[in-house]
């Protein structure tokens, strides 16, 4: 299957006052449509850095990242923004919903940025909120939602422009076990509906749902196992 994103020997080195820190070392990886990838490993092993590089919000210090065979390193900032807007969905541990917008407005924002007509984006926003089970909370602002509800809104926002790839960084990290289960089930549904999902997690229960599991240590992939 044609990969959506392909990393070829990528490394990421952060210059620090005390000396450079290598977060990724010679990582090669391919993610295709229909993949469900879990990334696990101890804190500081480079999981989030890998996710950021795959999501085109960071660029590797060396190596090549191809997104639909296009070299991301050669893209201008605006082109990378466009790529993220249309092809990639992000879900973060701390939700990062805009506090001044309602749940519906948060979901509508990326669609508006992509130029979707108002009526269409309203319709899709309601469909997405319905999908994550929050249609009744469409007009609520983040401060009026629980952690699990905020994360579901964040997932709806990530799906707003029908991305091929969803990247989730510790999506259940701030949630209790029961709510975490709901989010994990939602990610399963997304995968089943055809979206490629990459989940960085410390939670074995979440990792256990992935079809492929990557173990990382010291910036390297030390084990990759289909499940």
């Amino acid at each position: 299957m044609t990969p959506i994103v392909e990393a070829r020997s990528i490394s990421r080195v952060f210059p620090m006052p005390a000396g450079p820190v290598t977060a990724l070392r010679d990582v090669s990886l391919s993610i295709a449509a229909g993949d469900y990838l879990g990334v696990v490993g101890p804190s500081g092993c480079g999981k989030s850095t890998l996710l950021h590089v795959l999501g085109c919000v960071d660029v590797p210090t060396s190596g090549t990242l191809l997104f639909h065979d296009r070299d991301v390193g050669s893209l201008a900032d605006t082109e990378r923004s466009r790529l993220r807007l249309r092809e990639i969905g992000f879900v973060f541990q701390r939700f990062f919903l805009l506090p001044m917008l309602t749940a519906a407005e948060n979901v509508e924002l990326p669609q508006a940025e992509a130029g979707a007509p108002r009526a269409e984006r309203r319709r899709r926003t309601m469909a997405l909120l319905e999908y994550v089970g929050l249609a009744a909370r469409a007009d609520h602002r983040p401060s009026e939602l629980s952690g699990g509800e905020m994360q579901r809104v964040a997932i709806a926002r990530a799906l707003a422009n029908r991305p091929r790839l969803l990247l989730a960084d510790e999506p259940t990290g701030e949630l209790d076990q029961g709510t975490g289960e709901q989010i994990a089930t939602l990610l399963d549904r997304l995968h089943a509906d055809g979206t490629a999902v990459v989940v960085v997690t410390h939670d074995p229960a979440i990792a256990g749902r992935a079809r492929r599991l990557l173990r990382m240590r010291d910036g390297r992939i030390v084990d990759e196992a289909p499940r």
Partner: protein
Amino acid sequence: MRALRLAWLTVVRQPARSCLGILGVAAVGALLFDMLLLSRGLILSFRDLLDRAGFDVRVVASDTLPFNGPRLEDATALARLIASLPEVEAVQQVRVADAETASGDFRRRIEFVGADPQARPMWTIVAGQDIAGRGEAALVINRHLAQTLRLSPGSSMSLTGRCGEAQGAPPLAFTVAGIAEFPFDTATADTVAGALSAAGRLCGRTTEDTADLLVVRSRPDAGADAAAAAIRRARRDVHVVTSDDLVQQFNRTQFSYFRQISVVLATVTLFFGVLLIAVLLTVSVNQHLGEIATLRAIGLTRRRVVSGIVWESAMLVGAGGILALPLGTALSVWLDRILRSMPGVPADLHFFVFEPRALVIHALLLAMAAIAAAAYPVRIVAALPIAATLRREAVS
């Protein structure tokens, strides 16, 4: 959702923060607006007073200010000569004398303005009649004197000249013909105007033909400059100034202090306004770095996120700037009243005068302030490393 709408929602859905910013800008903007009104207020008001007198050229004996230097000799002949010039429409001789009148047990000092009763007066009648055609004993008096001495048209009044060596000339009896406004009167001035000859008779100088100044009205088709040039050509020994010259002279000297003060204070208030908004926006941006990084991560361009900050700054400054106008106007009225109560200031001279130009400059300065205030938070947003910020926010 456009950057403008996102900025609007940010402003209206964080009312406490927005109100704080808007009120801060309104306070600063009100002071700025007042400084703009003050910077040219005196000049505009002074010009208005000069124009209100109805004459645009003044002829004096030397380059000192009128009433401070020597008098014009052979004033009647000079006035006739000037009146005969084609550029001149009217001439008025003015001679000021010090006088006093009895008020109970006190002597009240009066400024007597002597002028040709047949020429256009320099004052405006507000009650009764002017002195024209009523003989040497007719007077017009200002409101302050009328109220203080309870005089009205038809009242009698006795004046004694205060004439230095001629002190002791007998008092002269006058009849109040009317009540008038004198453009340069202070709030407590006691001013009367009568015939030019009466000004001389107050000190027993019945044959003296002098004047402190001649005021001249140019013909509209010639203009003040042409009239002044014609007078200079006709009489090189006199000093001729137009109203424009006087305004420029005062602008360079007496009024320049107010202009300099207003420039300094306007600069300081603008600086504080920029700081206030910059701090508010910077704090807001720093509080929401995670959300801003997320906006970038989900695909909003740098330009789009930056324009949201600029719009937000523009909205806060714009709303504050609009609110500043009524606030500044009320403040200027209050400050004007305080400054005009200073001794020796003409009652109709204003320090704060509105002109459309001030409004335009106010808007331009605030627009610049909005951009300057947004500069630092915009820099933070523009240079925000998305991945590093997301990582930092996740562990903080």
